[in-house]
């Protein structure tokens, strides 16, 4: 018996030793000069821009990328009593109400908020979140396919259900992917609470293909993207972003004169992303400074080429590639967060049984 006790003591000591290492580790990051940003996997910023912030404010930024947007929000809600960081970036208008209803954020009015376009300030009176960027979820088309087949690309939601576009569209699962959900909400905004189901019945009859995520849709199934071409993608229509054509050009091995893909501007849904000060942040001052930084001109102008979204601050310059190879939608579909909150889960459920089953 004694031998076991010995081993037990040894292991116990080992565990304590190990956890001791762990806790010193934790202490070093909890210092008030560190601000921790929790975000989704798509967070990106130019090194020199971030270094500039650190130099100006004296804060050191630690970034915690926590899965895709939905996962990051859910994890932040689950851990809100003892949050993993100080500031959260990346909750969009489709999930905003979930974050607000769960009391994820505390109010803070960012310096420079007055320069943010009024249309983006969805939490105007309470200031729990600060708008940072926007983007449009739209159907993209493969220019070459439509030229080769002497076919006009579809221009509207209604067009997509027409016989000449049969078996051409691939979209994402609205239950698991944010562009998929955006496209569903766009169709609901277009056809109304009672009309969208009929529309999706027509789309299904017209051969729409559904895959789980954007990566798979865009890089595997879509014939217009360079990776999709290599992968043998055979769908010339895909639900993606209005900024995807500029991205195709910027990431091409040899820059083409025009983008190989185009946008059907009548199929767009506007997505706005927000940042907020986490409820129990350990470093609220640092978090506030960071939120100010997110709506500063320096960050706003750096952002488009890093995350492929548009700035929300008036007067922020958009890079030339964005204007040359594409543009933001003029009349995107929108929906109030309250309405999304009231219907999202039920709609996704009906959509799932309508389209996937």
């Amino acid at each position, binding site marked *: *018996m*004694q*031998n*076991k006790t*010995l*081993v*037990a003591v040894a*292991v*116990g000591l*080992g565990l304590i030793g*190990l*956890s001791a*290492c*762990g*806790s010193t*580790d*934790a202490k070093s*990051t909890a210092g008030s000069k560190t601000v921790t940003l929790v975000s989704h*996997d798509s967070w990106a910023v130019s090194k020199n821009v971030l270094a500039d912030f650190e130099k100006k404010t004296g804060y050191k930024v630690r*970034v*915690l*990328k*926590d*899965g895709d947007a*939905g*996962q990051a929000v*859910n*994890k932040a*809600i*689950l*851990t809100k*009593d*003892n949050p*993993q960081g100080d500031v959260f970036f990346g909750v969009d208008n489709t999930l905003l109400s*979930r974050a607000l209803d769960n009391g994820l954020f505390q109010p803070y009015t960012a310096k420079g908020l007055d320069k943010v376009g009024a249309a983006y300030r969805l939490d105007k009176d309470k200031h729990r979140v600060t708008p940072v960027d926007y983007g449009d979820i739209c159907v993209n088309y493969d220019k070459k396919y439509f030229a080769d087949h002497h076919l006009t690309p579809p221009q509207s939601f209604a067009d997509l259900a027409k016989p000449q576009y049969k078996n051409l569209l691939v979209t994402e*699962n609205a*239950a*698991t992917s944010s562009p998929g959900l955006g496209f569903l909400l766009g169709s609901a905004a277009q056809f109304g609470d009672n009309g969208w189901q009929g529309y999706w019945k027509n789309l299904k009859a017209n051969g729409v293909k*559904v*895959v*789980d*995520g954007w*990566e798979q849709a*865009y*890089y*595997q*199934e879509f014939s217009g993207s360079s*990776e999709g071409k*290599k*992968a*043998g*993608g055979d769908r010339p229509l895909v639900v993606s972003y209005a900024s995807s054509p500029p991205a195709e050009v910027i*990431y091409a091995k040899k820059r083409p004169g025009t983008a190989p893909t185009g946008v059907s501007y009548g199929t767009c849904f506007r997505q706005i992303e927000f940042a907020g000060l986490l409820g129990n942040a350990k470093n609220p001052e640092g978090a506030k400074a960071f939120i100010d930084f997110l709506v500063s001109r320096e960050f706003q102008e750096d952002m488009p080429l890093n995350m492929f979204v548009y700035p929300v601050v008036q007067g922020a310059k958009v890079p030339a590639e964005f204007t040359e190879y594409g543009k933001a939608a003029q009349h995107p579909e929108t929906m109030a967060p309250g309405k999304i909150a009231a219907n999202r*889960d039920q709609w*996704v*459920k009906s959509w*799932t*049984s309508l389209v*996937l*089953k």
Partner: protein
Amino acid sequence: MALPVAFFALFFAWPVAAIVARGLKADGAWRWGRLADVVTQPDIRHVLWFTTWQALASTALTLLLALPAAYVFARLDFPGRQVLRAVVTVPFVLPTVVAGSAFLALVGHGGLLDDLWGVRLDTTVWAILLAHVFFNCAVVVRTVGGLWSQLDPRQEEAARMLGASPLGAWRKVTLPALAPAVAAAALMVFLFCFTSFGIVQILGGPTFSTLEVEIYRQTSEVFDLSTAAVLTLVQFAAVGAILAVHAWTVRRRETALRLVDPAVTARRPRGAGQWALLALVLGTVALLLVLPLAVLVQRSLDAPGFGYYRALTDADGGTFLVAPVHAVWTSLQYAVAATAIAVAIGGLAAAALARRDAGRLVRGFDALLMLPLGVSAVTVGFGFLIALDKPPLDLRQSWLLVPLAQALVGAPFVVRTMLPVLRAVDVRLREAAAVLGASPWRVWREVDLPMVRRALLVAAGFAFAVSLGEFGATVFIARPDNPTLPVAVARLLSRPGDLNYGQAMALSTILMVVCAAALLLLERLRTDRTGEF
């Protein structure tokens, strides 16, 4: 006994209970009514039905293909047998993301079969079933084959002498001896397929969902914690039932069998029948197990001059803050820590379970130790996040969290490997030593240790390989700036571009080689006893 119990209570039961309570408790009151609500939903019933039938079909298919292989590896002697045995085991310890992408490269869009004959199986149930066979062959080959190789062939020969037909002799003599092992292996395979996550997620597309995938979707995407909690309880009950039956078959197997050294039972194949069987098995193994792995390696070499491997050392890829090759180092460190914990906890548990005077309660703990294998990783991962976040136990920032989660999965394997060996140590040896004046410590060192040393090494090796490949729980708690190998592979796979894909394949290949090396070492160390893995 106290330490393993405390460990599982603290790092398994508590986090799981915390996340279930989060979903089912509203304003201090339990909402058991949700149980009936959720289980009667048509969508959920569909998930339950699919989970069950695909697991049954996968298990049947695995047995069909793996039993002949178990025979061949046990009874026939041919060159390369040991290497092949290790190769068969590699898929079992590979992370599902890697196996999933290997299968996609084979049967998916633009995969090998698509290029050759235009055959695509992705988003069909066939891809899921075949991948399950790929994964679980090892369980049958090792469990059944291990025992088969130690059955005394002379018993069957004696039956033949007495006039039984070959089939009759096999049916009357060998089959009854093997049956409990087959049942135990089948139940383990059923358990792994029933709780399948990555395979279904990657190969099934949005149309297929097992209970485990549904728990993930409800928690992580829909954020319906109460539905997720109900599903966790349902899965818990199902897994508990499977394990109870498994524990019962394992105990039945411990009835005395006359076992012999496996080295003397294997012979060179004789006669057309045996040669044909050998060819058939090797063909199946090549097609189903080696081919997907080979496709993986081939894709990793698709750039000139090992380009993808060289890119792994470059920190400017943008996907991580560190060079991807750093993940190899991180993984090795975590795996060493996880192995140490798993061996300590599992070894102590096995020692307690092996005692002759172990009561029913202790034996019940045996089955409980297996539970982490069947409980949703997302439940454990989220549970860790919300349960271990307050002093005195605030581990959320600690690197130790990952090895702890991995040890949960590794410990059951340690118990299963050590237990039969410990039970076989003759008590009289210990008593004799004690009578001759040896201290308890010395008795352990001189009597027990030499007998269990090899089993201990095998257990450690297996725990090591399993920790290296663990993905489900790790992905939830691994720190973003310090990814493990499987997490790095998954993240590279979700990024666009050839370079990322190629690097993912290269990292997968490295992981595969490390696992295969560990397993080959184990083959050399294998004990003569009937450990299960």
